[in-house]
């Protein structure tokens, strides 16, 4: 990436934090829901018109690569949003155009004009929700999350992976809290267990009643539902007295860091591990692995070096074809896995084509990426970073 573009990325991010993302989080707490929507849309309107339709994003949009229609690439989406701003009624294809964006952010990374299409798409989705234009998958997601507090409709405790005795030992107060997330709670409890085993030695606690971080709702435009669930989590977080939240899910990470108020330091498991490498009795493994950058950890938050540092402390790292800012999306984000599973899997298959020859594992640090890349098949086993760390701690 060019220097200037990088700077612009940072400016956009800073801008969001100051006037959009962070403030919207604060407004959840202090001023009520309507202001969040209005404000974010106003910010994005300027961003919509920043797009001069040069087509740079078209050449990198992973969804377009597998779908082929202009409406399925970033420029098409920006055009459709422009048309809505100018008064055109949303039809069903508006929905499918906007809903197929994984919000991977590679378009924002490459945009010479400094537009931030994922944010525009999210704002437009919120507007559509307001107008009642909602896809079946999204409606179901909203209903499930609102009712069960998780995206899977699970009714058992989020801490089912701990024994009764272990649960009773969870400290009520601590400086650090491990935010587990829906995926690790219900689909990969072994990740949660392994993560907590490492973290508890550093005095880390768990929330008594964690709910979904609200990322799926925020990405798909259900701001009102998101607000309620975020308020609940905030109360739970405050109860622990923690100053730092640690999470192993890229989706939870970006949400907690950028959509919640600035009350807590938010770090990812790779960051925490990289910070405490010397305190971990890791042994070297005779393995060569590759690493997939989750979009919401990498491009959205610039966490590139920490997971690599952890991997290199354990074994050899052989990079994928496209990495860091240029990493290709696994297809799991932005509600696409739920709404358009075929497209989502096609993206994952494409991403697996980037895996180099001769690696033992493909490592990533997001359970959603793990899930999608595993579902796509492929010859290489996919591991979460914590699994690799656990292997090195055995």
């Amino acid at each position, binding site marked *: 990436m*060019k*220097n*200037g573009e990088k*700077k*612009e990325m940072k*400016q956009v991010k800073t801008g969001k934090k100051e006037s959009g993302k962070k403030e919207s989080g604060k407004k959840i707490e202090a001023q009520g829901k309507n202001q969040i929507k209005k404000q974010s849309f106003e910010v994005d309107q*300027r961003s919509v*018109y*920043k797009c*001069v*339709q*040069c*087509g*740079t994003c*078209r*050449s990198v949009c992973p969804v377009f690569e597998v779908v*082929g*229609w*202009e*409406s399925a690439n970033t*420029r*098409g989406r920006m*055009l*459709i949003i422009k*048309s809505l701003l100018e008064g*055109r009624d949303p*039809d069903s*294809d*508006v929905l499918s*155009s906007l809903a197929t964006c994984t919000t991977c952010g590679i378009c924002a990374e490459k945009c*010479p*004009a*400094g537009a931030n299409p994922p944010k525009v798409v999210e704002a437009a989705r919120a507007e559509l929700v307001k107008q009642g234009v909602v896809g079946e998958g999204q409606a179901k997601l909203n209903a499930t999350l609102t009712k069960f507090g998780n995206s899977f409709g699970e009714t058992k405790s989020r801490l089912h992976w701990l024994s009764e005795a272990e649960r009773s030992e969870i400290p009520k107060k601590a400086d650090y809290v491990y935010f587990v997330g829906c995926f690790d709670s219900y689909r990969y409890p072994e990740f949660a267990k392994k993560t907590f085993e490492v973290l508890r030695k550093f005095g880390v606690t768990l929330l008594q009643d964690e709910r979904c971080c609200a990322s799926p709702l925020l990405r798909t435009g259900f701001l009102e539902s998101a607000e309620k669930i975020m308020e609940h989590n905030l109360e739970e977080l405050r109860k622990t007295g923690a100053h730092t939240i640690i999470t192993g899910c890229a989706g939870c990470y970006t949400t907690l860091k950028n959509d919640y108020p600035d009350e807590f330091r938010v770090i990812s498991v790779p960051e925490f591990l990289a910070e405490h490498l010397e305190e971990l009795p890791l042994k070297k493994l005779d393995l060569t692995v590759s690493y997939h950058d989750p979009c919401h950890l990498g491009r959205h938050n610039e966490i590139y070096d920490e997971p690599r540092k952890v991997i290199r402390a354990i074994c050899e790292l052989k990079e994928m074809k496209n990495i860091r800012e240029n990493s290709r999306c696994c297809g799991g984000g932005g509600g696409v896995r739920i709404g358009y599973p075929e497209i989502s899997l096609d993206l994952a298959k494409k991403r697996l084509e980037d895996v180099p020859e001769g690696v033992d594992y493909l490592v990533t640090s997001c359970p959603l990426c793990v899930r999608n890349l595993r579902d796509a098949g492929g010859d290489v086993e996919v591991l979460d970073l914590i699994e690799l760390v656990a292997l090195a701690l055995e």
Partner: protein
Amino acid sequence: MTVNADVIDELREIVGKRVSVSPSELYCYSSDASQVRGLPDYVLRPLNTEEVSRIVRLAYEREIPVTVRGAGTGLAGGAVPVKGGIVLDMSGMDRIVELDIDNIQVVVEPGVIQDKLNEALKPLGFFFPPNPGSSAMCTIGGMIAYNASGMRCVKYGTTRNYVRDLEVVLADGKVIHTGSRMLKSAAGYDLTQLMVGSEGTLGIITKASLKIAPLPKTRKLVMAAFESAELAGKAVVKTFSSGVVPSACEILDRVSLKVLKRYDPNLVLPAEGDVILFEVDGTENSAREAAAQVMEVCSGLALTLKLAESEEEMTKIWAARRLVGAAVSRLDPTKSRIYVGEDVGVPMKQIPKLLEKVQEISEEFELPAMKYGHIGDGNLHVALFIDVLKEDEWARLNAAADKIHRTAIELGGTVSSEHGVGAARGQYMELQWGPAFGVMRTIKNALDPKGILNPGKLGL
């Protein structure tokens, strides 16, 4: 145009699900990177020549306009269906059919992306030299249809110089080949060259045989700052006269330099002056010799002079130069670059004059303008910026662009050097060409009597 259910059925018979009449989809095909707008009635994504031929035959019978589109990166509305009808999205025809290295040529379908072709050629030690700024996303078909080029054309020529043969679907659906794989031919009219730059008004390109070139072993860059644009121009003329043909010869005017420096004082560009970037390529010895020659020519004329030989240093300089289109927006996020009046060209010696005139226009209409371009071939890019939410700025923008176009013609130049005419510059064709434009009309009428191929373009 009105959408006809029979037509949709017939089109579906040809391309199956690869036809759309969805309002949202049509909207996405109603523009390119220019300000031209026009809604199609049908969008189709053909995958082979036969499908294209059948579609065009149907369009010919029903007299439906057909507009061809590649990646839609054009800056003149060439791919915009201003008269409605069918848009043919050729990006699915993206196969590199043959890398015929023994004959130093390739055969490609029109939807191949320029960078992808070069990615395939690089390991073989070759490249396809025309390199527009949009090479990461533009298609070869679009490059041929608009005779695209880029900063290296000063040495390597434009797309036109690389096309040997085209497979073309004519207005009635007939398929012809315009040339051969021969290096030369003295038999008959050169239909290949007629098709290059014809902007989809004479036929639809479905395959192309292209000459390629060996990759240069190395490149070097001389960056020189001059007290005035006139002196910079003089240095360029002297460089060519000394026998050096740079592989790029770019100018960045002093106003643009100031903006860039304000945006980022650490950019690796001179502190002041009108800047010329001379790139030379070849073998290590020939490039070193050429760079030394450029340094010698410029030494008596330039304020500052710098030779960059490492890849890293050259990359930094080019990256700084590329910021020119975006720096204004980054200094003031309410300002967007709008592509109008952006591609004029004049005889090389007139570049300083054109720079001066454009600066006057920028001041007259109170619009920030960045000026940069390929001084080696007389092509000046003007980047104008406005707040797109303010209507009066649009009016001033269009007036400024009109004046820039007329100025270029007055200086003996052209309204477009490498982006094309499309619907954005058609009104200047008569003025630029005089009676020759009548000949163009005659050719158009002969090849497309019903006027279905990209109507409303080239001023025709």
